[in-house]
Protein backbone atom coordinates (compact mmCIF):
# COMPACT_ATOMS: atom_id res chain seq x y z
CA UNK A 1 0.00 0.00 0.00
CA UNK A 2 1.48 3.36 -0.97
CA UNK A 3 0.91 5.64 2.01
CA UNK A 4 3.29 8.10 0.38
CA UNK A 5 1.20 8.56 -2.75
CA UNK A 6 -2.10 8.48 -0.89
CA UNK A 7 -0.92 11.37 1.29
CA UNK A 8 0.16 13.29 -1.82
CA UNK A 9 -3.32 12.67 -3.27
CA UNK A 10 -4.98 14.08 -0.13
CA UNK A 11 -2.63 17.10 -0.19
CA UNK A 12 -3.43 17.76 -3.87
CA UNK A 13 -6.77 19.12 -2.64
CA UNK A 14 -5.10 21.63 -0.28
CA UNK A 15 -2.67 22.08 2.64
CA UNK A 16 -3.26 20.07 5.82
CA UNK A 17 -1.86 19.12 9.22
CA UNK A 18 -0.33 15.67 9.73
CA UNK A 19 -3.21 14.46 11.90
CA UNK A 20 -5.76 15.77 9.40
CA UNK A 21 -4.03 13.72 6.70
CA UNK A 22 -4.37 10.55 8.77
CA UNK A 23 -8.06 11.24 9.34
CA UNK A 24 -8.69 12.03 5.65
CA UNK A 25 -6.90 8.88 4.49
CA UNK A 26 -8.88 6.67 6.85
CA UNK A 27 -12.20 8.33 5.98
CA UNK A 28 -11.52 7.90 2.24
CA UNK A 29 -10.77 4.19 2.63
CA UNK A 30 -13.55 3.54 5.15
CA UNK A 31 -11.13 2.70 7.99
CA UNK A 32 -10.17 -0.52 6.24
CA UNK A 33 -6.47 0.31 6.54
CA UNK A 34 -5.94 2.31 9.72
CA UNK A 35 -2.69 4.33 9.79
CA UNK A 36 -0.71 5.03 12.91
CA UNK A 37 0.32 8.61 13.48
CA UNK A 38 4.02 7.71 13.58
CA UNK A 39 3.77 6.18 10.10
CA UNK A 40 2.15 9.37 8.78
CA UNK A 41 4.86 11.67 10.21
CA UNK A 42 7.69 9.40 9.05
CA UNK A 43 6.24 9.43 5.54
CA UNK A 44 5.73 13.21 5.60
CA UNK A 45 9.37 13.63 6.73
CA UNK A 46 10.54 11.66 3.68
CA UNK A 47 8.23 13.56 1.33
CA UNK A 48 9.66 16.82 2.70
CA UNK A 49 13.24 15.54 2.29
CA UNK A 50 12.46 14.61 -1.33
CA UNK A 51 10.92 18.08 -1.89
CA UNK A 52 7.54 16.61 -2.80
CA UNK A 53 5.92 18.59 0.02
CA UNK A 54 6.86 21.70 2.01
CA UNK A 55 6.05 22.28 5.67
CA UNK A 56 5.38 25.60 7.42
CA UNK A 57 4.42 26.21 11.02
CA UNK A 58 1.00 27.80 11.55
CA UNK A 59 0.10 30.34 14.28
CA UNK A 60 -0.01 27.51 16.86
CA UNK A 61 3.40 26.27 15.80
CA UNK A 62 1.94 23.14 14.15
CA UNK A 63 3.27 22.04 10.78
CA UNK A 64 1.01 22.50 7.79
CA UNK A 65 1.98 20.44 4.75
CA UNK A 66 1.61 21.56 1.15
CA UNK A 67 2.23 19.62 -2.07
CA UNK A 68 4.95 20.98 -4.44
CA UNK A 69 5.01 20.90 -8.26
CA UNK A 70 7.42 17.94 -8.03
CA UNK A 71 4.90 16.32 -5.67
CA UNK A 72 2.10 16.78 -8.23
CA UNK A 73 4.32 15.23 -10.92
CA UNK A 74 5.07 12.27 -8.67
CA UNK A 75 1.35 11.83 -7.97
CA UNK A 76 0.57 11.96 -11.72
CA UNK A 77 3.24 9.33 -12.33
CA UNK A 78 1.61 7.07 -9.71
CA UNK A 79 -1.78 7.31 -11.40
CA UNK A 80 -0.24 6.67 -14.83
CA UNK A 81 1.74 3.57 -13.78
CA UNK A 82 -0.02 0.24 -13.10
CA UNK A 83 0.81 -1.41 -9.77
CA UNK A 84 3.19 -4.29 -10.56
CA UNK A 85 1.53 -7.68 -10.07
CA UNK A 86 4.72 -9.47 -9.03
CA UNK A 87 4.34 -7.89 -5.62
CA UNK A 88 2.50 -10.89 -4.17
CA UNK A 89 1.54 -10.26 -0.57
CA UNK A 90 2.21 -13.12 1.82
CA UNK A 91 -1.03 -15.06 2.12
CA UNK A 92 -1.41 -16.83 5.42
CA UNK A 93 -4.29 -18.99 4.15
CA UNK A 94 -2.24 -20.35 1.24
CA UNK A 95 0.79 -20.92 3.47
CA UNK A 96 -1.36 -22.69 6.08
CA UNK A 97 -2.84 -25.04 3.45
CA UNK A 98 0.54 -25.87 1.98
CA UNK A 99 1.84 -26.86 5.39
CA UNK A 100 -1.37 -28.69 6.27
CA UNK A 101 -0.81 -30.82 3.13
CA UNK A 102 2.91 -31.35 3.62
CA UNK A 103 2.94 -31.98 7.37
CA UNK A 104 0.19 -34.60 7.26
CA UNK A 105 -0.71 -33.88 10.89
CA UNK A 106 -4.19 -32.48 10.27
CA UNK A 107 -7.37 -33.08 8.26
CA UNK A 108 -6.78 -30.76 5.30
CA UNK A 109 -10.39 -30.89 4.07
CA UNK A 110 -11.53 -29.68 7.48
CA UNK A 111 -9.02 -26.80 7.35
CA UNK A 112 -10.40 -25.85 3.91
CA UNK A 113 -13.99 -26.03 5.10
CA UNK A 114 -13.41 -23.93 8.24
CA UNK A 115 -11.58 -21.31 6.23
CA UNK A 116 -14.30 -21.19 3.60
CA UNK A 117 -16.96 -20.57 6.21
CA UNK A 118 -14.85 -17.73 7.65
CA UNK A 119 -14.09 -16.23 4.24
CA UNK A 120 -17.72 -16.33 3.08
CA UNK A 121 -18.77 -14.82 6.39
CA UNK A 122 -16.39 -11.90 5.80
CA UNK A 123 -17.78 -11.63 2.28
CA UNK A 124 -21.30 -11.42 3.73
CA UNK A 125 -20.18 -8.55 5.95
CA UNK A 126 -18.70 -6.54 3.08
CA UNK A 127 -21.81 -7.27 1.01
CA UNK A 128 -23.95 -5.77 3.79
CA UNK A 129 -21.79 -2.65 3.77
CA UNK A 130 -22.17 -2.52 0.00
CA UNK A 131 -25.93 -2.86 0.09
CA UNK A 132 -26.02 0.03 2.55
CA UNK A 133 -23.56 2.06 0.46
CA UNK A 134 -25.52 1.66 -2.81
CA UNK A 135 -27.86 4.49 -1.83
CA UNK A 136 -25.08 6.80 -0.56
CA UNK A 137 -23.87 7.70 -4.05
CA UNK A 138 -20.22 7.53 -2.84
CA UNK A 139 -18.76 5.80 -5.87
CA UNK A 140 -15.17 5.67 -4.57
CA UNK A 141 -16.32 3.92 -1.40
CA UNK A 142 -18.47 1.48 -3.41
CA UNK A 143 -15.53 0.62 -5.68
CA UNK A 144 -13.34 0.05 -2.65
CA UNK A 145 -15.94 -2.33 -1.20
CA UNK A 146 -16.09 -4.07 -4.60
CA UNK A 147 -12.34 -4.64 -4.30
CA UNK A 148 -12.80 -6.34 -0.92
CA UNK A 149 -15.70 -8.39 -2.32
CA UNK A 150 -13.71 -9.67 -5.29
CA UNK A 151 -10.67 -10.48 -3.12
CA UNK A 152 -12.82 -12.53 -0.74
CA UNK A 153 -14.55 -14.15 -3.72
CA UNK A 154 -11.20 -15.14 -5.20
CA UNK A 155 -10.20 -16.80 -1.93
CA UNK A 156 -13.55 -18.60 -1.59
CA UNK A 157 -13.34 -19.90 -5.16
CA UNK A 158 -9.77 -21.03 -4.66
CA UNK A 159 -10.91 -22.92 -1.53
CA UNK A 160 -13.68 -24.56 -3.62
CA UNK A 161 -10.99 -25.68 -6.03
CA UNK A 162 -8.87 -27.05 -3.17
CA UNK A 163 -11.87 -29.00 -1.89
CA UNK A 164 -12.53 -30.42 -5.36
CA UNK A 165 -8.88 -31.43 -5.74
CA UNK A 166 -8.88 -33.16 -2.34
CA UNK A 167 -12.12 -34.98 -3.20
CA UNK A 168 -10.68 -36.14 -6.52
CA UNK A 169 -7.51 -37.27 -4.81
CA UNK A 170 -9.55 -39.28 -2.27
CA UNK A 171 -11.61 -40.89 -5.04
CA UNK A 172 -8.45 -41.76 -6.96
CA UNK A 173 -6.85 -43.21 -3.82
CA UNK A 174 -10.01 -45.27 -3.17
CA UNK A 175 -10.02 -46.59 -6.74
CA UNK A 176 -6.35 -47.46 -6.49
CA UNK A 177 -7.04 -49.49 -3.33
CA UNK A 178 -9.84 -51.44 -5.05
CA UNK A 179 -7.85 -52.09 -8.22
CA UNK A 180 -4.41 -53.43 -7.33
CA UNK A 181 -3.33 -53.49 -11.02
CA UNK A 182 -2.91 -49.70 -10.82
CA UNK A 183 0.55 -49.18 -9.35
CA UNK A 184 -0.08 -48.30 -5.74
CA UNK A 185 2.94 -46.04 -5.74
CA UNK A 186 1.24 -43.57 -8.06
CA UNK A 187 -1.43 -42.45 -5.65
CA UNK A 188 1.01 -42.57 -2.76
CA UNK A 189 3.45 -40.45 -4.71
CA UNK A 190 0.91 -37.73 -5.32
CA UNK A 191 0.07 -37.51 -1.64
CA UNK A 192 3.65 -37.92 -0.49
CA UNK A 193 4.74 -35.35 1.98
CA UNK A 194 8.07 -33.76 2.84
CA UNK A 195 9.96 -35.98 0.44
CA UNK A 196 8.17 -34.65 -2.66
Amino acid sequence: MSVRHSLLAVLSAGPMHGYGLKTEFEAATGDVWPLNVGQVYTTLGRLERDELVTAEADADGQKVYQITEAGRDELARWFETPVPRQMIPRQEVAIKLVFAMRSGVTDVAAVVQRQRVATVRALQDVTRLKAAAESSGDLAWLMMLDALVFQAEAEARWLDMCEARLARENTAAGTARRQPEIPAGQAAKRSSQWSS
Partner: protein
Amino acid sequence: MVLLDIDRAGRAFGSGHLRVVALDDVSLRVSAGEFVAVMGPSGSGKSTLLRLAGGLDRPTSGRVLLAGRDLAGLDEAGLAQALRRQIGFIFQETNLLASLTAAENVALALELDGVRPKAAMAGARGLLDSLGLAATGSRFPGQLSGGEQQRVTIARAVAGGRSLLLADEPTGALDAITGESVMGLLRQRCAAGCAVVLATHNVRHAAWADRVMFLTDGRLAGETGPPAGPECLLGTGQAR
Protein backbone atom coordinates in the same frame (compact mmCIF):
# COMPACT_ATOMS: atom_id res chain seq x y z
CA MET B 1 -42.30 -17.65 12.09
CA VAL B 2 -40.70 -20.69 10.47
CA LEU B 3 -42.00 -20.89 6.89
CA LEU B 4 -39.95 -23.77 5.62
CA ASP B 5 -38.76 -26.62 7.82
CA ILE B 6 -36.76 -29.34 6.14
CA ASP B 7 -36.22 -31.88 8.87
CA ARG B 8 -33.42 -34.43 8.36
CA ALA B 9 -34.44 -34.94 4.76
CA GLY B 10 -32.85 -37.51 2.50
CA ARG B 11 -33.42 -38.31 -1.15
CA ALA B 12 -32.09 -41.43 -2.82
CA PHE B 13 -32.58 -42.58 -6.40
CA GLY B 14 -32.49 -46.18 -7.62
CA SER B 15 -31.88 -49.23 -5.46
CA GLY B 16 -29.35 -51.93 -4.72
CA HIS B 17 -25.87 -51.26 -6.07
CA LEU B 18 -27.32 -48.56 -8.37
CA ARG B 19 -28.62 -46.57 -5.41
CA VAL B 20 -27.48 -42.95 -5.48
CA VAL B 21 -27.94 -40.74 -2.44
CA ALA B 22 -28.51 -37.17 -3.67
CA LEU B 23 -29.30 -35.76 -0.26
CA ASP B 24 -28.43 -37.26 3.11
CA ASP B 25 -29.91 -36.13 6.43
CA VAL B 26 -30.04 -32.41 5.66
CA SER B 27 -32.02 -29.99 7.83
CA LEU B 28 -32.88 -26.41 6.98
CA ARG B 29 -35.25 -24.00 8.72
CA VAL B 30 -36.07 -20.70 7.09
CA SER B 31 -38.13 -18.01 8.79
CA ALA B 32 -40.13 -15.15 7.29
CA GLY B 33 -37.76 -12.34 6.35
CA GLU B 34 -34.76 -14.64 6.15
CA PHE B 35 -32.47 -15.15 3.16
CA VAL B 36 -30.56 -18.44 3.00
CA ALA B 37 -28.09 -19.38 0.27
CA VAL B 38 -27.13 -22.96 -0.53
CA MET B 39 -23.75 -23.48 -2.16
CA GLY B 40 -21.91 -26.54 -3.38
CA PRO B 41 -20.36 -28.06 -6.48
CA SER B 42 -22.48 -29.62 -9.23
CA GLY B 43 -24.09 -32.79 -7.93
CA SER B 44 -23.80 -31.74 -4.28
CA GLY B 45 -27.58 -31.76 -3.80
CA LYS B 46 -28.46 -28.04 -4.08
CA SER B 47 -31.16 -28.48 -6.68
CA THR B 48 -32.50 -31.62 -4.99
CA LEU B 49 -32.86 -29.64 -1.77
CA LEU B 50 -34.70 -26.87 -3.61
CA ARG B 51 -36.99 -29.37 -5.32
CA LEU B 52 -37.88 -30.90 -1.94
CA ALA B 53 -38.45 -27.42 -0.48
CA GLY B 54 -40.77 -26.58 -3.36
CA GLY B 55 -42.73 -29.85 -3.19
CA LEU B 56 -41.58 -30.74 -6.72
CA ASP B 57 -40.10 -33.92 -5.28
CA ARG B 58 -40.65 -35.91 -2.09
CA PRO B 59 -37.95 -36.97 0.38
CA THR B 60 -37.20 -40.69 0.85
CA SER B 61 -36.49 -39.96 4.52
CA GLY B 62 -37.26 -37.05 6.84
CA ARG B 63 -39.96 -34.42 6.42
CA VAL B 64 -40.64 -31.14 4.65
CA LEU B 65 -43.03 -28.74 6.40
CA LEU B 66 -44.42 -25.63 4.75
CA ALA B 67 -45.83 -23.14 7.27
CA GLY B 68 -46.09 -26.03 9.74
CA ARG B 69 -47.86 -28.44 7.36
CA ASP B 70 -46.17 -31.69 6.39
CA LEU B 71 -46.23 -31.79 2.59
CA ALA B 72 -46.36 -35.62 2.72
CA GLY B 73 -49.84 -35.39 4.24
CA LEU B 74 -51.29 -33.53 1.25
CA ASP B 75 -52.86 -35.13 -1.80
CA GLU B 76 -51.81 -33.91 -5.24
CA ALA B 77 -54.52 -31.25 -5.44
CA GLY B 78 -53.85 -29.98 -1.93
CA LEU B 79 -50.12 -29.92 -2.61
CA ALA B 80 -50.57 -28.02 -5.87
CA GLN B 81 -52.74 -25.44 -4.15
CA ALA B 82 -50.39 -25.00 -1.16
CA LEU B 83 -47.42 -24.56 -3.47
CA ARG B 84 -49.14 -22.14 -5.82
CA ARG B 85 -50.36 -19.94 -2.97
CA GLN B 86 -47.15 -19.85 -0.99
CA ILE B 87 -44.14 -20.54 -3.17
CA GLY B 88 -42.60 -18.57 -6.01
CA PHE B 89 -39.97 -20.22 -8.20
CA ILE B 90 -37.18 -18.41 -10.01
CA PHE B 91 -34.91 -20.27 -12.39
CA GLN B 92 -32.03 -19.26 -14.64
CA GLU B 93 -34.39 -19.38 -17.63
CA THR B 94 -36.99 -16.70 -16.99
CA ASN B 95 -39.88 -18.61 -18.65
CA LEU B 96 -41.87 -15.43 -19.29
CA LEU B 97 -44.59 -15.88 -21.91
CA ALA B 98 -43.31 -14.13 -25.02
CA SER B 99 -46.74 -13.11 -26.32
CA LEU B 100 -47.68 -11.27 -23.12
CA THR B 101 -46.27 -7.96 -21.84
CA ALA B 102 -44.33 -7.89 -18.58
CA ALA B 103 -47.39 -6.62 -16.70
CA GLU B 104 -49.60 -9.30 -18.31
CA ASN B 105 -47.10 -12.00 -17.31
CA VAL B 106 -47.32 -10.87 -13.69
CA ALA B 107 -51.11 -10.43 -13.89
CA LEU B 108 -51.49 -13.98 -15.17
CA ALA B 109 -50.04 -15.33 -11.91
CA LEU B 110 -52.65 -13.34 -10.00
CA GLU B 111 -55.47 -14.50 -12.29
CA LEU B 112 -54.48 -18.10 -11.63
CA ASP B 113 -55.01 -17.27 -7.95
CA GLY B 114 -58.58 -16.24 -8.79
CA VAL B 115 -58.11 -12.47 -9.03
CA ARG B 116 -60.32 -10.86 -11.72
CA PRO B 117 -58.42 -9.73 -14.83
CA LYS B 118 -58.81 -5.99 -14.29
CA ALA B 119 -57.77 -6.15 -10.63
CA ALA B 120 -54.94 -8.54 -11.55
CA MET B 121 -53.59 -6.06 -14.10
CA ALA B 122 -53.78 -3.21 -11.58
CA GLY B 123 -52.05 -5.40 -8.99
CA ALA B 124 -49.34 -6.37 -11.48
CA ARG B 125 -48.64 -2.75 -12.41
CA GLY B 126 -48.54 -1.75 -8.74
CA LEU B 127 -46.09 -4.56 -7.98
CA LEU B 128 -43.81 -3.71 -10.91
CA ASP B 129 -43.91 -0.09 -9.81
CA SER B 130 -42.92 -0.97 -6.23
CA LEU B 131 -39.98 -2.98 -7.55
CA GLY B 132 -38.72 -0.12 -9.70
CA LEU B 133 -39.88 -1.87 -12.87
CA ALA B 134 -42.71 0.44 -13.92
CA ALA B 135 -41.01 1.14 -17.26
CA THR B 136 -41.08 -2.54 -18.24
CA GLY B 137 -44.85 -3.03 -17.78
CA SER B 138 -45.99 -2.47 -21.37
CA ARG B 139 -43.01 -4.15 -23.02
CA PHE B 140 -42.81 -7.73 -24.22
CA PRO B 141 -40.10 -10.06 -22.83
CA GLY B 142 -38.23 -9.86 -26.14
CA GLN B 143 -37.92 -6.10 -25.65
CA LEU B 144 -36.38 -6.44 -22.18
CA SER B 145 -32.74 -7.00 -21.24
CA GLY B 146 -31.79 -10.25 -19.47
CA GLY B 147 -31.64 -8.46 -16.14
CA GLU B 148 -35.05 -6.84 -16.63
CA GLN B 149 -36.57 -10.19 -17.60
CA GLN B 150 -35.16 -11.80 -14.47
CA ARG B 151 -36.51 -8.99 -12.28
CA VAL B 152 -39.95 -9.29 -13.90
CA THR B 153 -39.75 -13.03 -13.15
CA ILE B 154 -39.13 -12.18 -9.50
CA ALA B 155 -42.14 -9.84 -9.57
CA ARG B 156 -44.22 -12.69 -10.99
CA ALA B 157 -42.85 -15.09 -8.35
CA VAL B 158 -43.87 -12.81 -5.47
CA ALA B 159 -47.23 -11.76 -6.96
CA GLY B 160 -50.19 -12.62 -4.78
CA GLY B 161 -48.16 -12.37 -1.59
CA ARG B 162 -46.28 -15.65 -1.98
CA SER B 163 -44.16 -15.92 1.11
CA LEU B 164 -41.39 -18.30 0.08
CA LEU B 165 -39.12 -17.69 -2.90
CA LEU B 166 -37.00 -20.54 -4.22
CA ALA B 167 -34.32 -19.39 -6.64
CA ASP B 168 -32.10 -21.83 -8.54
CA GLU B 169 -29.12 -20.04 -10.15
CA PRO B 170 -31.25 -17.02 -11.08
CA THR B 171 -28.26 -14.90 -12.07
CA GLY B 172 -26.40 -17.46 -14.18
CA ALA B 173 -26.66 -15.57 -17.45
CA LEU B 174 -26.35 -12.02 -16.12
CA ASP B 175 -23.37 -9.65 -15.93
CA ALA B 176 -21.90 -8.66 -12.55
CA ILE B 177 -23.85 -5.45 -11.92
CA THR B 178 -27.19 -6.80 -13.21
CA GLY B 179 -26.70 -9.93 -11.11
CA GLU B 180 -26.27 -7.73 -8.06
CA SER B 181 -29.44 -5.80 -8.82
CA VAL B 182 -31.32 -9.13 -8.83
CA MET B 183 -29.76 -9.98 -5.45
CA GLY B 184 -30.73 -6.52 -4.19
CA LEU B 185 -34.32 -7.22 -5.24
CA LEU B 186 -34.35 -10.57 -3.40
CA ARG B 187 -32.97 -8.80 -0.30
CA GLN B 188 -35.72 -6.21 -0.64
CA ARG B 189 -38.36 -8.97 -0.72
CA CYS B 190 -36.88 -10.38 2.50
CA ALA B 191 -37.20 -6.97 4.13
CA ALA B 192 -40.87 -7.12 3.08
CA GLY B 193 -41.27 -10.43 4.95
CA CYS B 194 -40.60 -13.07 2.29
CA ALA B 195 -38.31 -16.01 2.97
CA VAL B 196 -35.76 -16.71 0.24
CA VAL B 197 -33.73 -19.84 -0.50
CA LEU B 198 -31.12 -19.37 -3.21
CA ALA B 199 -29.07 -22.17 -4.74
CA THR B 200 -26.00 -20.82 -6.48
CA HIS B 201 -22.40 -21.39 -7.51
CA ASN B 202 -21.70 -17.69 -7.20
CA VAL B 203 -20.24 -16.90 -3.80
CA ARG B 204 -20.60 -13.14 -4.36
CA HIS B 205 -24.33 -13.61 -4.75
CA ALA B 206 -24.56 -16.11 -1.89
CA ALA B 207 -22.99 -13.43 0.31
CA TRP B 208 -26.19 -11.37 0.04
CA ALA B 209 -27.85 -14.00 2.24
CA ASP B 210 -28.19 -14.02 6.03
CA ARG B 211 -26.82 -17.57 6.14
CA VAL B 212 -24.81 -19.59 3.65
CA MET B 213 -24.97 -23.41 3.74
CA PHE B 214 -22.38 -25.55 2.01
CA LEU B 215 -23.39 -28.94 0.63
CA THR B 216 -20.87 -31.61 -0.32
CA ASP B 217 -21.96 -35.02 -1.64
CA GLY B 218 -25.50 -34.43 -0.42
CA ARG B 219 -24.46 -33.58 3.13
CA LEU B 220 -24.26 -30.31 5.00
CA ALA B 221 -20.54 -29.52 5.16
CA GLY B 222 -20.70 -26.14 6.87
CA GLU B 223 -22.76 -23.05 7.49
CA THR B 224 -21.82 -19.42 8.07
CA GLY B 225 -24.55 -18.55 10.56
CA PRO B 226 -25.83 -15.00 10.81
CA PRO B 227 -23.40 -12.26 9.73
CA ALA B 228 -21.07 -11.05 12.44
CA GLY B 229 -21.42 -7.41 11.42
CA PRO B 230 -18.99 -5.09 9.67
CA GLU B 231 -17.20 -4.17 12.93
CA CYS B 232 -15.64 -7.63 12.97
CA LEU B 233 -14.57 -7.34 9.38
CA LEU B 234 -12.87 -3.97 9.60
CA GLY B 235 -11.36 -4.47 13.02
CA THR B 236 -11.40 -0.80 13.95
CA GLY B 237 -15.11 -0.66 14.68
CA GLN B 238 -15.35 2.59 12.79
CA ALA B 239 -16.82 1.40 9.52
CA ARG B 240 -19.29 3.88 8.22
